[in-house]
């Protein structure tokens, strides 16, 4: 029992980080109907940037975010402008999948040239510190990471509901034609949406860098997991993605603790396949089957 509770705590903390990572992905899909396979690579890129700033400039990862986030935002807009926008509308959804995959490969390639393929990790003073709460161990880094994720998700939520561009993004997500007819420049909004999505990668990358060792190849594991989460949550649904992420974080940790970590890796996929049997539109998907 102790083991399970401990696993649930870990799972929730991990799930929070997953939620942050998946939010960017599902946002990009919502705004542009683009499955950004490069999101994992963007997260790893941010992790490397965090690492570099930490090792060479001594910047604490949480401070480094202030520099990296705007950078990633711009990079996201740039990627959208150069690679996604020129795709012909009718095959954008299909081609974007492959194009973003190529972007991921490119980022992986550049990272392995610059940083080699050895695993890196960011060891701050508090990396190994823990709290003991009623016999349960809480890793401080993970807790900070969780808090950061919650904070960023909160900011994202505020940005989407309280700002003009945020409303425009939601409008484009919910009804692109109508948004365009109301004078929303959908391409510009899409670029901002993509930028925001990339910006979430920066925070996710910072947390990732502190919690896990990573190398340029790590993005495969990340993206397979994130894609599963957003499909589980229903493509384009932010709330769905967050719930699915928490659920999966907990399920994975509990299974790893009680059964075996190798089989726990399959949790995501089994959950996904089961879901397909019951609800092909995802747990919280509002879209009809054909419209996904």
């Amino acid at each position: 029992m102790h083991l399970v509770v401990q696993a649930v705590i870990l799972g929730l903390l991990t799930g929070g980080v997953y939620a942050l990572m998946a939010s960017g992905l599902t946002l990009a899909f919502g705004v542009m109907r683009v499955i950004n396979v490069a999101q994992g690579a963007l997260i790893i890129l941010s992790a490397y940037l965090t690492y570099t700033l930490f090792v060479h400039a001594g910047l604490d990862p949480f401070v480094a975010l202030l520099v990296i986030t705007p950078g990633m935002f711009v990079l996201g807009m740039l990627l959208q402008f150069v690679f996604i926008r020129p795709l012909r509308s009718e095959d954008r959804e299909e081609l974007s999948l492959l194009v973003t995959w190529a972007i991921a490969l490119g980022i992986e390639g550049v990272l392995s040239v610059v940083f080699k393929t050895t695993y890196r990790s960011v060891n701050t003073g508090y990396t190994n510190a823990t709290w003991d709460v009623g016999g349960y161990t809480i890793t401080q880094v993970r807790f900070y990471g969780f808090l950061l994720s919650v904070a960023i998700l909160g900011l994202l939520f505020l940005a989407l509901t309280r700002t003009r561009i945020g409303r425009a993004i939601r409008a484009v997500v919910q009804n692109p034609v109508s948004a365009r007819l109301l004078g929303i420049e959908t391409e510009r909004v899409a670029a901002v949406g993509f930028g925001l999505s990339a910006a979430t990668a920066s925070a996710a990358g910072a947390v990732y860098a502190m919690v896990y060792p990573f190398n340029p190849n790590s993005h495969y594991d990340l993206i397979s997991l994130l894609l599963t989460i957003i499909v589980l949550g229903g493509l384009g649904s932010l709330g769905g993605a967050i719930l699915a992420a928490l659920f999966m974080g907990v399920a994975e940790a509990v299974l790893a603790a009680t059964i075996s970590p190798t089989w726990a890796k399959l949790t995501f996929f089994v959950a996904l396949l089961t879901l397909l049997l019951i609800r092909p539109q995802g747990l919280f998907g509002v879209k009809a089957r054909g419209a996904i």
Partner: protein
Amino acid sequence: MIGVLAAFPFLFSAHWLVNIGVFTLMYAVLATAWNLIGGYAGYISLGHVAFFGGGAYAIAVTTTHHYAAHGYEPFYVLPLVGAAVALGSLPLGWLAFRTRTATFAIVTLTLLFVFQQLAFNLRSLTGGSSGLLLPLPLFPVATYERPFYYALLGLLTCGLAISWWVRGSKLGLTLFAVRDDEDRARGLGMRVTYAKLAAFALSAGFFAMAGGVWAFYIGSVYPQFAIDPLVTIGAVLMVYLGGKATLWGPVLGAVLLVPAQQYLAYRLGASQLYLVGYAAVFLVVMLLLPRGILPSLAEKIRRRRGRADPGRPPAQVERPAKELVRS
């Protein structure tokens, strides 16, 4: 074309050239098979390499216990393996076809990871991360690569024949209709599910058979190599480069890319930039040649002759505005 390929090992008998030929043909088979579902039906499966791995493991498991003294036996069981994997792919296909477009791609990608994980986890069957060894084929050294080469050429010929047959058949018509507007095709009473599953199983079978030959050729099977996402991506890239939904495009893509890749890695791979280069080729193809070489060339030729395309669709009736808004 098949004749040229058949004569190749005799024209260029150097082992290293035939060796490259083996890999080229392997990818040609994969690309041709992927084209059935990804090109004709427009369903982008990113997980087909799971079936490649399935075939590789099937051949490895069936041959690994009879050590040595082997010649062509693995090739004989190949059709069986293909049929078995094709059958086995049906329920998976059925499950995956509950979704479309991007979701379908993600779900198939998931299949890939499931299979890779299974290959790692089912240690008693697959050897887990320690992999499986296949018997050493006892082919004469002088023509060592030829059995593999011709086995793959046979597969390619079958694949092309099926591909050609599908194009002219009701199955092909249904697949094209699915790609264009699945709901309408269904509304017209076309047997959409059946057609999709048939294409899926066919292409899965070819992936498995190619995987079987590959396993025998390399001699060892490890999960990360037998079920490597880059293999699917390679095949997909070749299809797009050569020309999606064309008969010869996938072959062309393979013929262009595989030797180039192998040779470049050999000559100047050390720079680590090959991934970047790969990505660049991919992006250029997607952005500049989204229709692939063959269709673009064909169009150019047609235009030069000043002939109007007789097959060009007539005036398009209104499309849903959803698509419009992105134009």
